[in-house]
């Protein structure tokens, strides 16, 4: 059993080592390239993308949906595990909160990349119309962002107080900043009661806002007549998909943080086993909704729907569709059923596969539908009959992903990736409850 000082020493943020610096430089390059490409897009117009009148949305939108989906991790792990009093969540929640915040910020940025006239963004407020699902998005995304900041910040307050003392001598400036952020936390019963209450309230809020956010995101599509989008199944389908994407991202990031920061004593195989079971559940729920979405319509498919499903099952999109569905969803679910599959390394690989699968899943939800309009595709250049992102789109999209990773990396650099105070408290409780064990 580690004592307080050891725990603080292990968990307190520390400087990057060489790989960390290389990583930051790599992300910075991607971001700079993305900014250059975006400026070019602003000057030339969205003609630099491969979107056209039929494929009128592309990877900017599917990437946006991916970010929104991944931001659901905060609602799932933090809120659900907290409200259901699952104690094993402790070393995982902080990273989940960080991913949530990074993803929702990037979702907000990504959606504006797709808007061709960002100079007129103010119109969204000046001339807002409540009946448009985009207006709902504009309401829910900032709301969710604020709640996710609170969800990250409130549990951090005691940790800031600890860090203030920890860095008092070595880094006075940083210590002062932590001091300000700690809001004069002393750990008095009154403060603790207030903090506990606030955390519980924020957990409930993030759960509700998360469900709303995913739902509105789904309605963005299901409020149109388009084949493949016009589905009453869409909101729960998106929520369950977000469940998968979020936990996949969480596992991936946690594995890396655990290795880089040598947190094996805090994030153990036990935690991976638990997360693995959770991802397994998520995958099966998502498979269930996929069956609802793709197999059931076979029975009553109208002509347009038949074309849509054929394009996915056997047509142009079949390879991608089956890879995403089998490798990205069914296979992980099967592997995770075995205890060996829930060890850290296999879980890390599964996490990466699930995240990549989730990204392409959004692509396959958005692109095929747009290229299957009700009236035939005629009278436009041949290149408009299909869609694959242009270089500009790839560079800009990579930059958004890099930015999300950058936010996560920076937050982990300056915040304790595992809650210190809570870890200490729990160890104390362990000592009181089972003193012989240690």
């Amino acid at each position, binding site marked *: 059993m580690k004592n307080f000082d050891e725990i603080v020493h292990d968990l307190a943020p520390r400087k990057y080592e060489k790989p960390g610096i290389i990583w930051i430089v790599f992300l910075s390059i991607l971001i700079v390239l993305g900014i250059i490409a975006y400026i070019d897009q602003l000057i030339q117009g969205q003609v630099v993308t491969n979107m056209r009148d039929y494929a*009128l949305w592309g990877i900017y939108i599917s990437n946006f949906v991916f970010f929104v989906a991944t931001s659901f991790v905060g609602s799932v792990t933090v809120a659900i595990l907290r409200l259901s009093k699952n104690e094993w969540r402790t070393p995982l929640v902080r990273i989940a909160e960080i991913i949530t915040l990074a993803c929702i910020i990037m979702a907000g940025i990504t959606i504006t990349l*797709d808007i061709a006239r960002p100079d*007129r963004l103010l*119109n969204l407020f000046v001339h807002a*119309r409540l009946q448009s699902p985009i207006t709902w998005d504009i309401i829910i995304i900032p709301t969710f962002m604020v709640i996710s900041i609170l969800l990250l910040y409130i549990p951090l307050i005691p940790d800031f107080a600890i860090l203030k003392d920890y860095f008092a001598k070595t880094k006075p400036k940083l210590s002062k900043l932590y001091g300000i952020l700690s809001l004069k936390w002393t750990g008095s019963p009154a403060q603790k009661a207030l903090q506990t209450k606030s955390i519980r309230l924020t957990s409930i809020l993030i759960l509700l806002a998360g469900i709303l956010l995913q739902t509105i995101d789904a309605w963005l599509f299901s409020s149109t007549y388009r084949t493949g989008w016009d589905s009453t199944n869409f909101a729960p389908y998106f929520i369950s998909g977000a469940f998968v994407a979020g936990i996949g991202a969480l596992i991936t990031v946690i594995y890396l943080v655990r290795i880089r920061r040598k947190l094996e004593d805090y994030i153990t195989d036990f935690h991976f086993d638990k997360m693995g079971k959770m991802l397994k559940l998520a995958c099966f729920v998502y498979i269930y909704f996929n069956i609802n979405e793709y197999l059931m319509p076979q029975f009553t498919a109208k002509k347009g729907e038949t074309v849509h499903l054929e394009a996915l099952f056997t047509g142009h999109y079949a390879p991608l569709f089956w890879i995403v569905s089998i490798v990205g969803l069914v296979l992980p679910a099967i592997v995770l059923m075995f205890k060996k599959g829930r060890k850290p390394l296999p879980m890390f690989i599964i996490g990466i596969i699930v995240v990549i699968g989730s990204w392409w899943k959004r692509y396959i939800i958005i692109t095929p539908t*747009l290229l299957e309009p009700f009236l035939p595709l005629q*009278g*436009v250049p041949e290149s*408009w009959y299909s869609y694959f992102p242009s270089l500009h789109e790839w560079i800009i999209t990579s930059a958004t992903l890099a930015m999300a990773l950058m936010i996560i990396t920076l937050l982990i650099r300056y915040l304790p990736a595992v809650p210190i105070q809570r870890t200490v408290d729990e160890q104390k409780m362990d000592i009181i409850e089972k003193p012989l064990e240690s």
Partner: protein
Amino acid sequence: MGDTTKKERRKFLDKGLKVGIAAALGGFGISKITSKLNANSKSDSGEKIELMTTDGTLIEIDSSEVVEVQHSEDHDKKYNVREGMPHRKFVMVIDLAKCKNALKCQQSCNKHHYITGDNAWLKVYKMQESKDTAPYWMPTTCMHCDQPACVTVCPVDATFKRKDGLVLIDNERCIGCRFCMAACPYSTRVFNWSEPKQEFTLDMDMLEHQYSPEHGGMPSVKGTVDKCDFCPHQVKNNELPHCVTACPNGVFYFGDKYEDTVTNGEETLRLSKLLEDKAGYRLLENLGTEPNVYYLPPVDRLVDFEDGLEQFTEFQSVEKPTEE
């Protein structure tokens, strides 16, 4: 800010107009009374007179205030662009039996709206429902739906529905999110992906032209959506939309549903009778979008479908300027 004052001015004009028209009608209808009343018009007579305004509401005015005025000639031209021409409801009927894909409609539309992109606003589709049914040519414009999906989803009210039936776009407000394009089941909307390469000739008087949603393409704006506008700029000048006049086969009939008349420039017909006689229908009726464009089925055709194939270009709908 400028916008609101403009609006207020419009509102003021609108009100003034209504009162004026009311007074005018009253003046004509009861001119004898007014002339009598005019004799003692200075003071409040206490007598009320009931009048009907042009939009059918009954109003009461003190008889001393009733003054005879000139009948306003321009009430058709002065109206709020977002509300539309009063007492009109524009419709189109497209007779598929006559269409042989001459494409004059498309060319004329492209020319008069200065369309320079790759996707025309007016398309003539080569249609064949199934293997054993007859192929036919189907021109499509914007359907100007009464339940427009595009208007519902627009987050900034850039595309709007008017009382006279038109669905128009304010290119100065559109943010380019393309949600309307995703929503439109008729794929009628086109996007300005880059700066439009429109070349306005000098005789167009672009200097005097003020942007109005009533003339799409004048000019097209980068990063915004365009589509068929039903040519209200033509209607204002008592002329028919460009596609109607350009068609050599009289395929397009344009008119007013309230007047129950449509014309293709050569013949003027009763809309209701035409739709009844020729079994008119609307595209994708089952979606409930309530289009204002009606189709007459391609029966008893005068021309062979194959004749149109010559003109058919699968990958082009806007002729690219060739060096002249």
